[in-house]
């Protein structure tokens, strides 16, 4: 069953296709090798014969038949020559040469014949000597044959063909084996991913894909899937946390509201008392609505769908506007307000949400900085390994390093700030907005006080 599955996989098909293409190229290369080796020797044979003929033709022109016979005899006497000569009378009686009889073969239009040498010694392997020659009919009906024994050439060609055939066989074998191996390897890793996915679907939510660390496509796929799962888990944890917090943080004021109205109904007598109770109730309801709208804003930022409508936001202009908005309030609270715009970076984002994030940070700074303190709004551009950054520093009590992570969670308020107004959602929203923009929220000690920085990614919006 498994092997059929292997045949169905895309990887295997791709491997097969590559093998086919590879084979075709190898065939072309082998053909060229054959052409340049065996073909070359064959052509060389023909050229040698042509050269012999040219020499003999010269002899014949100068000294006629006797000269030709003499030269043929002389050349035939050369020991171990592989050139064949034969001169015969018009009735094919041999006159000179190293062949015993005129071969019985039909010449082609250009005079070439291929024949078997009958009186040659039999080869070791029992095969016969083949030869290739050109025949001429001389004036007077005499016949001339010039040729070459092709045994060695044929042996060489056979050897080359043999070698090429083996090379081809090896190519097919190795290629197929390699294809199957690669395919199996990839299959195995995809199988692993599928297995993990099924485990996660069946409830093992903490499972993650194994990442081999070589950075190939499958590794990237696994890493991306892991990142996606982390994001989902983060959202799920957030949801659970919110529903827990909603239960607590909304139920408490709702209960308070309800009991206050109930008491009023039972106790209050005068119209003024009713009026005061109703005013209180409206105030309480407004606080609840504020919590709702903050939660919705956070949810909107966390959903990430706003990224589609991102625009280029001039961060420095935004900061100037927020400084313009908050400076009088800071002065009124007896705080020094300074805006320090050092660069004019452009970031991709949603201006309204960024403004709200900066406003939340300024609200906090104004709330916690003691009278006579300072609030500083700083904008810096790209540099020193970090992207554009907007930061807000105050001279308040700050947040202890070990609690900086937790204040980002919804409804979390420090023990020391319980008495001041607020719903514990301000920094959660800032954090959500930062993450929506791919930015990092950094908190630092301002000695004394807190610096909160939104550090944007380094990519410059195109």
């Amino acid at each position: 069953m498994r092997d059929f599955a292997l045949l169905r996989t895309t990887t295997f098909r791709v491997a097969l296709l590559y093998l086919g293409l590879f084979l075709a190229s190898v065939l072309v290369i082998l053909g060229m090798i054959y052409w340049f080796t065996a073909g070359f020797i064959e052509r060389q044979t023909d050229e040698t014969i042509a050269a012999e003929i040219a020499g003999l033709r010269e002899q014949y022109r100068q000294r006629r038949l006797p000269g030709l016979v003499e030269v043929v005899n002389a050349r035939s006497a050369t020991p171990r020559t592989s050139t064949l000569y034969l001169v015969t009378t018009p009735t094919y009686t041999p006159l000179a040469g190293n062949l015993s009889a005129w071969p019985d073969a039909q010449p082609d239009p250009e005079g070439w014949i291929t024949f078997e040498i009958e009186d040659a010694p039999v080869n070791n392997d029992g095969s016969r000597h083949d030869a290739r020659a050109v025949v001429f009919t001389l004036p007077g009906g005499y016949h001339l044959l010039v040729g070459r024994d092709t045994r060695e050439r044929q042996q060489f060609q056979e050897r080359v063909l043999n070698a090429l055939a083996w090379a081809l066989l090896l190519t097919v074998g190795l290629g197929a084996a390699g294809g199957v191996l690669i395919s199996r390897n990839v299959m195995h890793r995809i199988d692993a991913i599928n297995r993990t996915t099924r485990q996660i679907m069946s409830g093992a939510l903490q499972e993650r894909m194994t990442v081999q660390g070589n950075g190939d496509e499958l590794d990237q796929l696994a890493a991306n899937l892991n990142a996606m799962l982390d994001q989902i888990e983060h959202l799920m944890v957030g949801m659970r946390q919110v529903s827990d917090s909603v239960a607590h943080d909304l139920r408490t004021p709702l209960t308070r509201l309800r009991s206050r109205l109930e008491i009023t109904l039972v106790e209050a007598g005068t119209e003024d008392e009713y009026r005061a109770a109703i005013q209180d109730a409206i105030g309480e309801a407004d606080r609840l609505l504020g919590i709702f709208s903050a939660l919705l804003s956070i949810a909107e930022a966390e959903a990430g769908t706003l990224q589609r409508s991102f625009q280029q936001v001039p961060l420095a202009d935004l900061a100037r506007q927020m400084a313009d908005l908050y400076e009088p309030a800071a002065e009124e609270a007896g705080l020094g307000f300074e805006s320090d715009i050092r660069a004019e970076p452009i970031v991709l984002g949603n201006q309204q949400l960024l403004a709200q994030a900066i406003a939340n940070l300024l609200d906090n700074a104004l709330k916690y900085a003691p009278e006579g303190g300072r609030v500083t709004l700083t904008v810096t551009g790209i540099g020193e390994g970090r992207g554009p950054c907007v930061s807000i520093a105050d001279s308040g009590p700050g947040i202890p390093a070990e609690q900086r992570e937790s204040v980002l969670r919804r409804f979390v308020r420090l023990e020391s700030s319980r008495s001041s107004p607020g719903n514990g959602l301000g920094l959660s929203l800032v954090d959500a907005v930062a993450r929506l923009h791919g930015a990092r929220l950094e908190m630092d000690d301002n000695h004394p006080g807190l610096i909160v920085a939104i550090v944007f990614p380094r990519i410059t919006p195109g």
Partner: protein
Amino acid sequence: MSGGFQGPSGGPSGDRMPGNRGAGDREGDPPGDRPFFGYDGGMKILVIEDDAQAAAYMVKGLKESGHVVDHASDGKDGLFMAGSEAYDVLIVDRMLPGRDGLSVVEILRGAGTETPVLFLSALGSVDDRVRGLRAGGDDYLTKPYAFSELLARVEALGRRKSAAAATTTKLQVGDLEMDLLSRKVKRGAKQIDLLPREFRLLEYLMRHAGNVVTRTMLLESVWDYHFDPQTNVIDVHVARLRQKIDRDFPTPMIHTVRGAGYCLRA
């Protein structure tokens, strides 16, 4: 977003609630800022809202504030009524049975109706707001809202319609004068120097003289941001402006309307 709907018996003076408005504030308005009202009595308002209770509450409040109010409970009826009668302002819920509020307004705009539209919606996200304004809405209010906020915005919309007709280069409320070209402000004979943001703030207050403007309306129109600042940032701006406008004069012009916002009156 505090404040709300108090009974007709009226709260502390200066409180602007449905009920005490027609009797109190209006008659107290000096004739000097009449030209800024696009309407002589109340406005004619159409409320397209499917929630019967919310609609009844809104209609009651608007009527008690001196306006004539019609109500349609679905998009189809609303479209018909808006198309067949002349209204000063339409209040349209985004989610309606039959035909949703966005398409109602799109059709009206397509037919050339220019009546100002205030969208009401439980969808408060940035995207939804943009979509509503793009469909032809003039303002957008997220549910739940304080009635004082709704009233202030509806009256501002009625005002916008009439103000758009006249291209003024000068604004005048009582003895307060603003020259929009030379960017100079005078009260009586005294020249008043304003920062750019104070100028924009005063311009908005003067254009809506006699009407309540809420803090969120100021943040939206002067700074172009749509959120509720937690601290009193807007109040401080108005207080500074008030210092410059009212300090040396016997009668104050910028009034705080408790639970709602501010009102510039001569």
